[in-house]
Each structure stands twice: as structure tokens, then as C-alpha cells.
């Protein structure tokens, strides 16, 4: 009788532990708010999960140097940032200090500074604008602080793209998180070269500044 009770309690405890342990990988199962709300209130068919492509934690900063195998040498953030004893100076907070370290890092994010997102105490952590910590993988909440309209669009499936099913009662869906497309340091998407154009029989490629091949000064 006692063995059975013990086994039951242990089983329950294990179940509780397993249930609350978050899995921090780059494919976290994390339905968005609106989807949770839908699931909670509805008595429809079971909905398949929506997978968000959260980022994997960054190994560190590329130094620009390669080893004998050609692999880029990266330095973990803590290597330098754990050695700091005093708080960073005002100059260190600005972009000028990036010229010596963090080589290859392009920083173009409006008027933000490093500490807008990075936690000065822990090189691998981030914090929200009010100083409260945010999980390393949770770029969505981090970026949404300023990019509210995009977050609202995202919550309603109108930003960020997706693959999978439009009908979640029939299959799952995978969605991007912010950093899937936008680098946190230089978020503006870069130029791309279109690689696929229809080959029309008679419609010739033209100067990008003119809609057609011919000259017509009066009808532009």
C-alpha cells in the first residue's frame, strides 16, 4: 500500500516537473496569444501546433580570424564581458566602441545602443526597456516593445510568413520569429537579386527607369 502511494506521488511529481520544463531549442512550441485564446474558448476540433522558429543562442562574436581549417574563430561574449569590473563608460555605450571589438558586426538600428537590449550584467541575456529580464530566445517580446504594429500584425498572421497549413484543424504550421528575417543589429532587410523571371517570347527586358524599351517623351 505504501509502495503504491509512493510510486503514485513520484509519478505525479515527475509529471509536474516534465510539464513545466521549457525546452529551449530553436524550434520551441509556443502558440501565440491569439491562438491560445482561440484554443481556450472553442470547442472545435483539436488544433495542430504552430511552431515558431526562435533563434538559437549565439555562440559569440566573430573575430574575423579563421583557424587552420578555415573555420571562423568566435569569442564567447563572457570572455571579455565577465572581465569588466566597472560599469561601461558613456563612450563604450555608443557605436564608436564597436570599431575595435565586435569586428564584422554591422550596427544599424535607429538610435538604439547595445544596452537597449543587452543586459550589462550578463553578456548572454537581454532585458526589456523597464529592466525586467526576458528569455534569451524570446525575440518576439523583445522587439515588440517598439515595433508594436508589426507585433499586432504578427499575432494575426499578417507578418512574418508561414509554411504549413492555413487550416490548423488539419495540420501544423511553422512561423518565423522576428530574427528569422531581421538581424537584431541591422534589421532592415538587404537588397536581393531576383533570380527567376518569366521568359516572354516578345516582351524584352528593359531599362529599370523606363517602363518600356522605346523612347516616348510625351507619354511618360
Amino acid at each position, binding site marked *: 500500500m505504501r509502495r503504491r502511494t509512493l510510486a503514485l506521488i513520484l509519478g505525479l511529481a515527475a509529471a509536474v516537473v516534465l510539464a513545466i520544463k521549457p525546452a529551449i531549442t530553436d524550434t520551441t512550441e509556443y502558440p501565440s496569444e491569439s491562438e491560445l485564446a482561440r484554443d481556450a474558448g472553442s470547442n472545435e476540433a483539436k488544433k495542430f501546433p504552430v511552431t515558431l522558429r526562435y533563434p538559437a543562442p549565439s555562440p559569440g562574436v566573430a573575430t574575423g580570424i579563421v583557424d587552420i581549417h578555415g573555420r571562423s574563430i568566435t569569442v564567447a561574449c563572457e570572455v571579455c564581458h565577465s572581465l569588466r569590473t566597472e560599469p561601461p563608460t558613456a563612450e563604450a555605450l555608443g557605436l564608436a566602441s564597436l570599431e575595435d571589438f565586435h569586428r564584422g558586426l554591422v550596427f544599424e538600428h535607429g538610435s538604439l545602443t547595445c544596452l537597449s537590449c543587452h543586459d550589462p550584467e550578463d553578456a548572454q541575456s537581454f532585458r526589456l526597456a523597464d529592466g525586467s529580464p526576458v528569455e534569451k530566445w524570446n525575440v518576439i517580446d523583445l522587439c515588440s516593445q517598439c515595433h508594436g504594429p508589426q507585433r499586432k500584425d504578427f499575432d494575426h*498572421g*499578417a507578418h512574418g510568413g508561414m509554411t*504549413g*497549413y492555413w487550416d490548423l484543424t488539419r495540420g501544423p504550421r511553422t512561423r518565423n520569429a522576428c530574427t528569422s528575417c531581421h538581424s537584431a543589429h541591422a534589421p532592415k532587410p538587404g537588397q536581393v537579386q*531576383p533570380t*527567376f*523571371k518569366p*521568359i516572354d517570347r516578345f516582351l524584352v527586358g528593359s531599362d*529599370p527607369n523606363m517602363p518600356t524599351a522605346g523612347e516616348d517623351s510625351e507619354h511618360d
Partner: protein
Amino acid sequence: MTEKKGPPTGPVESNPANEPGPADPSRRTALKGIGATLGAAAFATAISPLRNLAESISAEELMQKHYKELDEDEKRAVLNRLEEEVKEQYGAEVEIRDHAPIPGTKFAYAINLSLCNGNGKCVEACHKENNHDRATNQSYIRVLEMPAGTMDMGKGNTTYDHSVPAKDKYYMPVQCQQCDEPPCTDVCPVQATWKDDDGIVVVDYNWCIGCRYCEAACPYHARRFNWKEPEIPAEEINPVQGYLSNRVRPQGVVEKCHFCLHKTREGKLPACLEACSTGARVFGNILDPDSEIRWVLENKRVFVLKEELGTKPSFFYFFDK
């Protein structure tokens, strides 16, 4: 081919046509017969290329009924036959299924023009998903590069090939709008194209006679005609096919975007949306109040192309700013 000269009747004015009692009737008749035979032989030779074509079209294909009139057994037979034909002609094993509309769905599509950067991945995805002819890079989507500040498509350009996005330009992909009042279905003389219950305007490729009236009627350049037999290497053929959607189409018929119904009628997203690298595309069931597309239509300032024509498209565009 030679025909006998008429009897020596003299000048034209003396009514040569109906002289009773020709000079040598039997000889004349014999020569006329030879002439006629030679003419018939010449005609048969002239149209002899058709013989090869006749051999490649089976009797079942020739006599196949309209899609809406096929019962389940006949449909299965047709699908099996089509799969065999693809195997024989292209060397690829494919599975062609028939997809009925999901009850209670009506599809709508929206594109955020503030996000689209004209990279053309949707165009390429359509090309690959729908087994288009490789030589022409055919696709159902055309992307217009428009100068900022105008909606005049005459100022747009589809042939841009520089890196995108260009300064002061926005990009507008155009494909079939799956209109609620489609001009194309009205004009088809044989009802080979119709608007299905879930809003998709479909084509029965085995019923279309290739008159291209629908192509003339469409205000959005959505329709494509198979000017020749499509050429696709076997390994590039997408084997997951639908009868009304992406199966390899025959020469001489019209086709168009079908919202990837072989995917969407199973709940999946269309290929163009999955390929979009900027997340500009939104698709879903407009009848579902919780769908993404419904939220876009209710909360964004959407517009449609050529609204004044009264076609009532199911395809919407919006800007964020």
C-alpha cells in the same frame, strides 16, 4: 495536280459553262475523275501531320465527358489514364487526385505591398509547384515594379532584373483574382471554366477547346495558354497533383492560378505564400471569423485592382503606411 483543259469552246463570251452535249463526255469525265483523285490524294498528304496527332489522342480522351458529369468510377478511370499518360510521356510517377471544395470555405488572399520587395520567389515557387513549361519560366504570377505615388499600371514594369527593392518603387504581384463575378467564366462557350463553391475559378483542361475567349476577357492577365506541349524533366515534375490544378496540362488548353487547390483544399498554404521571404502574403478562409485573412480585411485598408469593372476580386492589396 493537273486538270484537263476544257473542250475547245472558243472565246470566253460564248457561254462555255453550260454547253449541252460536251465534245467528248467520257474522256472529259475520266480526266475529271483523275483530277479529283489526285486532288484528294494531295489533300490527304497535306493534312498527313494530323495522323501522328490522332494516334496520340486516345478514344477515351476524345470522348471524355465534362468534369461535372463524371461519376466516381469514371473519374477514377480518367485519373488513372492521365497518370499513365504522364508516365509514358514524361517518365514520371505521379499521383493525380480529385479535390472537392471544403464545405464552409471561401478563399481570399491579401498581399501587403509595404512588405513585398519584388524578389520573385513566389513566381518561382508557382513555376515549380504547378509543373509549368521549363523553357518559358512560365508562372501564374507576374510582379509589377511600380513607382511610388501611382497606381497606374502603365507606369509599371514587369521586366526589371536589378536588385530589389529599388528606391521609390513598390512591388505588386498579380495573379488570378478568383473574382466573384468573373468575366472569364461568362464567356467560355463550353463551360470549361467555372467558379467552384470555395471561390476558386477552375478549368477542366480536358474539356477546354482552346478558343482563348477567356484569356481575352480577363482584365488581370491571369490566364495562360499552352502554346505547345509543356516540357519538364521527369525529376522536376511535382508528383502531388490535382485534376483541376497542377497536373501536367495538354497542349492547346487554357490554364490559370487555382490557389494551389491540391494543397489548399487539404488545408495547406499555397506555394506562393510559403515561398514568400518577406511574409507579405496572407491567405485563408474568409468565412472563418478568426482567420488571418479576415482580420486583414477588417483591420487594414485593403483595395482591389480595377474595382470599377465590377469583377469583385477575392484578392486584396494593402499598405502598412
